[in-house]
């Protein structure tokens, strides 16, 4: 087969090399090449998503090349239902993010090189079936994010870049300890996920040892997923980051945390999951309610979105704690739904702030009048976030809630209350920032007029609606991979 998963890494590398050789002055050409590269890779992600056979399930399109043989590390790629959906998400998000980056005028060459590294690293993490390579790509993606916030960010960008990176690195280090323990605890001394999985089916790690490793991995990657109280990097990080970084990070990179928790913690250590996840379920509700309440006090649109994003991660954590197929399907669905929604919302705020130079809702107001298109899109994104049916988020949230009801009735009720809180701050933001009379100073603003300017927004909105109305589009893929995980975990109870 000509199409294989390595293309996800090779193509961005080719794009990067090409850009590298072009003189920095030709910024238009550089942008074209970057857009083209991302576009091709995104098409590739669509192809692989549709080519994945969910009736068969398991890992497909496998590539396995031994690399550091003494340590049993191999370049092992493959996708299952969950990761095929995540690369699709990344394909969509990165395409929208690269289109939106037209506003970058300084150090264009470096910007797009960084961008491609981040995208390639994220693809690599989702494709890797070797824990070593997962970790490697995960860190590869983190470096350009740090630089991009620091260089192209706004406001307190240095502080934001430092805080975000330090938190994530600390989390990753914690997780690394857990992963190395795992390496030894299986007795196989390998990082190969497939081998570990098949070995553990018959020789589970002793529960006492699991109970030590599990929290390291969950908390470590939980920091990426803005697990309360380790979430405070996200608001300032997302707020000061350039638009494309906010989109990529809130949309996809953050989900790496949830992905890793499913893959390495819940899938490999089901016994410990039964011990630890009920505690996570409580923190999840704190995430939902507490971050939602903090969002109520924010005046900066990006801070509102960032706290909202932290709050929504609570649903993912709650779903992870359910140990049933409804909840886990909801989690994976929400990773996609929230990813698209967050991408769209950050893109829109970026579009507005580029012109107004302020994101404070008290200074804005009446924007729908002058920007009917962008304003309407923002209202729709906000409503999607508030769980209005018709958008993908509703499908995901309802599944998480149904899944959580039996085991965590109180948490579920509070999580439903969280939907009310989301509606309050979102409607408030719409009301103050977008409705009411238009202040004089904003009468010169322009809407997204051209097709290319509208394209990313329309595209993301369309995905959100299509997936919201037709869940089986994703659910077949998701179900094929969540089912074995749940069967495994239920049998270990």
């Amino acid at each position, binding site marked *: 087969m000509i199409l294989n998963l390595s293309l996800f890494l090779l193509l961005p590398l080719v794009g990067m090399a090409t850009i590298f050789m072009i003189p920095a002055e030709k910024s238009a050409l550089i942008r074209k090449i970057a857009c083209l590269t991302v576009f091709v890779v995104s098409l590739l992600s669509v192809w692989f998503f549709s080519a994945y056979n969910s009736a068969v399930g398991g890992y497909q399109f496998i590539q396995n090349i031994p690399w550091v043989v003494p340590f049993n590390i191999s370049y092992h790629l493959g996708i299952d239902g969950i990761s095929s959906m995540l690369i699709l998400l990344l394909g969509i998000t990165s395409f929208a993010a690269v289109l939106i980056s037209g506003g970058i005028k300084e150090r264009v060459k470096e910007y797009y090189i960084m961008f491609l590294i981040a995208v390639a690293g994220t693809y690599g993490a989702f494709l890797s079936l070797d824990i070593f390579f997962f970790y490697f790509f995960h860190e590869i993606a983190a470096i350009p994010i740090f630089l991009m916030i620091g260089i192209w960010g706004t406001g307190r960008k240095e502080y934001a870049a430092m805080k975000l990176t330090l938190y994530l690195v600390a989390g990753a280090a914690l997780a690394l300890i857990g992963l190395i323990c795992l390496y030894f605890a299986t007795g196989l001394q390998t990082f190969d996920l497939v081998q570990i999985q098949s070995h553990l089916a018959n020789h589970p790690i002793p529960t006492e040892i699991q109970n030590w490793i599990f929290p390291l991995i969950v908390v470590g990657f939980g920091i990426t997923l803005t697990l309360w109280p380790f979430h405070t990097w996200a608001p300032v990080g997302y707020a000061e980051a350039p638009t494309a970084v906010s989109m990529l990070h809130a949309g996809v990179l953050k989900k790496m945390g949830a992905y890793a928790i499913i893959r390495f913690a819940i899938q490999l250590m089901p016994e410990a999951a039964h011990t630890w996840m009920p505690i996570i379920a409580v923190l999840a509700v704190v995430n939902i309610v*507490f971050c939602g309440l903090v969002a109520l006090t924010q005046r900066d649109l990006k801070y509102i979105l960032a706290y909202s994003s932290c709050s929504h991660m609570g649903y993912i954590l709650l779903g992870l704690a359910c140990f049933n197929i409804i909840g886990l399907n909801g989690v994976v669905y929400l990773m996609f739904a929230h990813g698209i929604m967050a991408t769209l919302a950050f893109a829109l705020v970026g579009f507005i702030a580029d012109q107004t130079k302020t994101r404070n809702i008290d200074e804005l107001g009446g924007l729908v009048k002058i920007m009917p298109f962008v304003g309407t899109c923002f209202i729709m994104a906000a*409503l999607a976030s508030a769980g*209005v*049916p018709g958008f993908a988020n509703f499908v995901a949230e309802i599944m998480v809630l149904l899944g959580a009801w039996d085991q965590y009735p109180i948490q579920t009720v509070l999580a*439903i209350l969280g939907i009310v809180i989301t509606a309050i701050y979102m409607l*408030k933001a*719409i009301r103050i920032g977008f409705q009411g009379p238009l202040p004089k100073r904003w009468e010169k603003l322009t809407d997204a007029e051209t097709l290319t300017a509208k394209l990313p927004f329309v595209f993301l909105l369309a995905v959100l609606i299509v997936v919201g109305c037709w869940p*089986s589009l994703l659910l077949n893929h998701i179900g094929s991979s969540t089912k074995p995980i749940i069967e495994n975990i239920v049998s270990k109870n």
Partner: protein
Amino acid sequence: MVNPNIVWTAYFAPLVACVIITLFFLRSKNLSSLTAIAGILTSFACTIIMATDIFKTHPALEIQQSLPWIQFDALTINFGFLINPLAIMMMLVVTGVGSAIFIYSRGYMADDPSMPRFFAFLSLFAFSMIGIVLANNFIQLFIFWELVGLSSYLLIGFWYHKPSAADAGVKAFMVNRFADFGFLCGIIMLWALSDIGQGRSFQLTDIAAAIPQIDPHLLTIAALLLFCGVVGKSAQIPLHVWLADAMEGPTPVSALIHAATMVAAGVYLLARTFFIFEPLTTALTVIAYVGGITALMAATLAVAENDIKRILAYSTLSQLGLMVMALGLSGPMPGMYHLTTHAFFKALLFLGAGSVIYALHHEQNIWKMRGLLKTMPITGITFLIGTLALCGIFPLSGFWSKDEILALAFEHNTLLYWIASLASALTAFYMGRLFWIAFWGEPSKNDHAHESPTIMTFPLIFLAVLSIIGGFIGIPHFLFPENEHPHLNMRVAIISSVLAILGLFVSFVMYSKRPAVDPLEKKLGPFYSVLKNKYYFDAIYGWYVDRLQQGIAIASAWFETLLIDRFGVGGLISAANATGKILKHLQTGMVQFYALVFVLGTVVVYFILLKTL
């Protein structure tokens, strides 16, 4: 037999219209309005076909079709329809009254540059409302329940640049969201309880089958949670506060959504899922009293109001209260009967009010209107018909349906009977007040009010005819064919007629001369200011939102910045700095010292290696 394709056409025609307008006709007033009208008329035509089919074959038949929407081992959520006479009746109301209002809007909104957007929203609403009516399971119901809330929000805030309209939209959405919090909990709880051996289900028919085996205490909790949704959508006390503010929306919206259909969805839900409530005495009692108190409270509020649309809004609240009370007294038939006739005459009254507002260039204060019966004869006469029907004057439609409810209350609960009768008397009084002030007497000389165009008066006449004949077209029999034909309770009928005429008469004496100051103000004394402040509900909710809720939010934000960021993370940073300060003493800068450490280290490593080997 009903052809499923007909049902699906009725279901999706307004959505198709909405999508077409959004994609292609956002710049054309003409095409957008025609598309929307075509959409709702298609639905109406299909509904008539369904009604005749179902009436011909077997009146009590239930027809169901389900397509899987979400399906994996443990969870099945369908998308389907469940048709029975009740649903057909509601469909007729929604699409029939809807068609009249869509046509009327083409005239009413003609001057508004955003008319295409209006018709897109209105079509979205029609689709969502049809979805509630036909849904055959609770998740589908909830989806459309939320979507009508959304379209209501969009339409109330249609003139979003007006702060009051934008605020009203947010208020409506928030109050409903809060109510739906309970509603969703109820749905999930019911789903969890519905397992009687064949797995859990959201299907109405499956739940109906499971009801006898469910623990009644748990079922009561679930039923009351479901009722929360009703309290929000049908604006019952204590969540009634959004409906009067919702009058900020364009008047056709008030007629369609906030009088005839959406607010009645709660009553419809109670009737459609009555099998859940039927065995639960406690829940029914709560429902009956909530309805009764709402009916009376809203009627008193209407008495002191001067805005024509708000008077009608309080009247809607009051009538909804009566319907809910009827359901609480185990009377789905009287409740639904009144819902239907109320849809006719209340839509008529709102459209009449809209016609007046249109003619007077957005004047809504009744004290600024006079003698409209003469300047706008068609509007005036149809408004009078609507008023009389609402007051329950023989032989108009309102008389028959209200009598059913009062007779039901008379038989089951004397206290509620008198509450409802008092509310009815007050209804006659405030409607009389409105009519005498705004329509009676001589028009002032410099008044340029003139009759509205035909496109607006035609729907008025259509609805006026329905308001007159609504009591004679066999609605109760269509709804519940198995019931024996309702008979008039003479005693109740006479008392309610006397009370209605009394109300109209008292208001005539007080207002036909158009006093300069409202005489009520003096007569009611301090109670008048209580009414003006709407029993202080808004003040209490305002305190909750601005003080309590915001207070908790600010406390959370404070916790976040101070404790987590400053002490927690800041503490870690200080600890790291302190460690660094201690360890920096190792960085002596002397190469000999480094060499020493290096050698010692090597020795230690070798030692360990030797040991392990």
